[in-house]
């Protein structure tokens, strides 16, 4: 039996697809855990740990899975004193001295390199657009940059911010965040975040590096939760405080404004008659105003501290809310305000909880569907070899499509999976056409008959591909995955698997 070049081509592509899906060496053989995020400004980040690295050992003990990881750090930081932790990744060793466990999240090494979409792996996706104004694509790009910066400053590293547009020419910004989502993602991305400090009606400084803020303390002595207390009704509240360093110009502005203020003498101390008030998106922040002590009158001072609080049903809740509030304010103060008011068009936060069950049920559905195909084919043709060939080609088409998707970094969401199925279904149909043409009792040669089959197949192929084109551009790219996988599946079918199949059929029939 001699294999034709078409069959060889098919086998090579198939092998490449397997490599693309599983990698070399295969990822399911790799040991360790992969870092899915590192908090910026943390000791882990400073030591050099980054997202995507693979941890294989901690303190000399090898790490094979998530269990090993959490066990290796268990009980290590109870004393509250700085301890040394050695983390070995596939590249090198990192040493961290810290009083708390490394600020990283890890996950199991994925078994394949196929990327599943939000609806299967969990995460968040948002589409935002500017309110009341139509932005040009350059403006949209700028805005995307500001939003990305804000998310990064906030501590989210695995973020994709892309400007997208749709058929009616509207520009959106698509934000995709893998894994855990901050509780108020909507607020974080859509809040314009115009922070303003005023004394009376005089503006002293705005949030943002070039608007008067030189830097913002985020950890250490100058920032943190100060105290937690129980309120009368049983709920708790925690106070936070962090320092903000003003630019020279802003500090001077503050001095100029305070120079003319009167001094109020109270039993608690002597303060100026007006306070330093804070506004967020033109809304007065109640209870956050700062009293200005008498000795600051007319003096240039670059450091001020901002306080606030968060409450919750338990002390832990209150602590978390306070931390969150502090982080929100710090982020806004560092990144400054967004140039436009934004509105959220779509916001999906999907839990990864049922993702595996989902994927499994899809796999089972795929196997059962293939089995049904095999049954019908076998009943119809009563030919074991031909039926087996259809089944094998169908399965390999799934694998090759997934391989190409993995290679091109396409996120497979549910619509994209439906696309794969659509392509495979069409593929099976095409093979039935080939098989039937090849077996027809007409006088023409086998070559001629296969050619006839290909006329039908190419016709069906072309109609389907053109039908997918508009979907690629419509609806802010939400259905791109579907259009792409369908076209990929169909194209590889027509170019690679169908020719191979027809050669196989020729071999079987002749």
């Amino acid at each position: 039996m001699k294999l034709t070049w078409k069959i060889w081509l098919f086998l090579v592509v198939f092998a490449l697809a397997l490599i693309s899906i599983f990698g070399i060496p295969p990822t399911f053989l790799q040991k360790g855990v992969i870092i899915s995020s590192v908090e910026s400004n943390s000791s882990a980040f400073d030591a050099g740990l980054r997202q995507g690295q693979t941890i294989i050992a901690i303190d000399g003990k090898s790490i094979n899975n998530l269990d090993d990881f959490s066990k290796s750090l268990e009980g290590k930081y109870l004393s509250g004193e700085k301890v040394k932790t050695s983390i070995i990744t596939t590249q090198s060793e990192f040493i961290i001295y810290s009083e708390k466990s490394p600020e990283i999240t890890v996950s199991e090494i994925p078994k394949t390199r196929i990327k599943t979409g939000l609806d299967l792996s969990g995460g968040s996706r948002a589409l935002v657009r500017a309110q009341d104004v139509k932005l040009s694509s350059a403006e949209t790009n700028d805005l995307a940059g500001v939003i990305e910066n804000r998310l990064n400053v906030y501590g989210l590293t695995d973020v994709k911010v892309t400007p997208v547009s749709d058929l009616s020419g509207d520009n959106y910004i698509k934000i995709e965040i893998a894994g855990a989502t901050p509780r108020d993602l909507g607020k974080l991305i859509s809040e314009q975040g115009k922070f303003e400090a005023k004394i009376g009606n005089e503006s002293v400084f705005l949030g943002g590096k070039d608007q008067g803020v030189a830097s913002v303390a985020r950890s250490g002595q100058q920032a943190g939760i100060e105290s937690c207390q129980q309120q009368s009704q049983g709920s708790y509240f925690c106070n936070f405080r962090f320092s903000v360093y003003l630019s020279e110009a802003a500090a001077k502005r503050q001095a100029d404004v305070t120079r003319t203020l009167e001094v109020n003498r109270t039993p608690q101390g002597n303060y100026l008659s007006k306070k330093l008030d804070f506004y967020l998106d033109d809304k007065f922040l109640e209870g956050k105003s700062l009293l200005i002590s008498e000795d600051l009158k007319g003096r240039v001072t670059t450091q001020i501290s901002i306080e606030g609080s968060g409450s919750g049903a338990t002390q832990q809740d209150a602590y978390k809310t306070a931390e969150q509030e502090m982080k929100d304010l710090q982020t806004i103060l560092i990144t400054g305000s967004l140039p436009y008011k934004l509105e959220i068009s779509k916001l999906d936060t999907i839990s990864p909880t049922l993702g595996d069950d989902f994927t499994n049920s899809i796999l089972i559905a795929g196997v059962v569907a293939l089995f049904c195909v095999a049954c019908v084919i076998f009943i119809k043709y009563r030919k074991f070899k031909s039926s087996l060939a259809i089944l094998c080609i169908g399965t390999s088409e799934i694998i090759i499509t997934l391989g190409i998707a993995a290679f091109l970094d396409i996120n497979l969401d549910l619509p994209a999976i439906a696309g794969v199925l659509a392509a495979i279904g069409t593929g099976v149909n095409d093979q039935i056409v080939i098989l039937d043409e090849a077996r027809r009792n007409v006088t023409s040669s086998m070559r001629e008959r296969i050619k006839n089959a290909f006329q039908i197949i190419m016709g069906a192929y072309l109609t389907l591909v053109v039908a997918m084109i508009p979907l690629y551009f419509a609806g802010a790219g939400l259905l791109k995955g579907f259009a792409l996988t369908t076209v990929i599946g169909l194209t590889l079918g027509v170019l690679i698997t169908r020719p191979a199949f027809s050669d196989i059929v020729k071999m079987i029939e002749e």
Partner: protein
Amino acid sequence: MTRVRPPAGAFFQMKTETKEKFSKLHDKYYKLALIIPAIILILCLVYMINFYSSNGDFIYKDISLKGGTSATLYGKIDISDLESKLSGSLEELRTRQIYDLVTREQKAVVIETTTPGDEVKQVLEDYLGYKLDNQNSSFEFSESSFTQGFYKQLLWANLIAFILMSIVVFILFRSFVPSFTVISCVLIDILMTLVAVNMLGVRISTAGIIAFLMLIGYSVDTDILLTTRLMKHEGDLNRKIYGAFKTGITMTLTSLLAIIAAMIIVSSFSEILKQIFLIITIGLIFDILNTWLTNVSILKWYLEAKK
């Protein structure tokens, strides 16, 4: 001992006698047979005109096309209690369950409402008595003006897809009647499926619109097969029709069986895939009628007249 094996393909094979009988019958009545699809088509058109005038749209839309929130809460939650307590505060509240295919154990409940996401979260947290986060819940919110635009674009995408498909078909066959037959078959498949889906009261999601697009592909397959076989080969017309039918019906039945099986498995889990499979299933069933009754008759009429 030898076992008697039926000849290959016996399942779809008919005796020569029956074949000839059927052939004569077909010759006599194929024009008359067109009345059946014509009546169905007219009924469908009347239904759709009626539907459009009372609903202002072609379909019932779910929140992914209408705007609103879909929340999935993991764990065992009493769905009837939730519904009765919250229907006052959440607009157009609808609920359904996600359960394990084998054990039938409830895994999550899905809540759909036209109320915006933040409010829904608050209401649900008050009802459940715990905070909802990324571990115990999923939220999908679409703002209504965005989804309206989105829906319009999907309709446009389907329309453009249809036009592009038509152009390709015309280029393929370069002959008006056959091309027109293929195109109208696809259109009628879509129309009939639309009617069936509306009658079942299915609320179409984004995925449903995609399914109609997939339907274009699936129904055009057999039509192209039939038209190519009839137009491009020499030989007895009825034999060609029968040959094409054997191949085409195998294709459709294979697809149908595979899709129905997959639908049963995913239906407890994914509303999206279930809807896609449901629409394709209905479409394929209508496609059998439209291809092998309507199209065959029209093409036969056309080719006989050309002789």
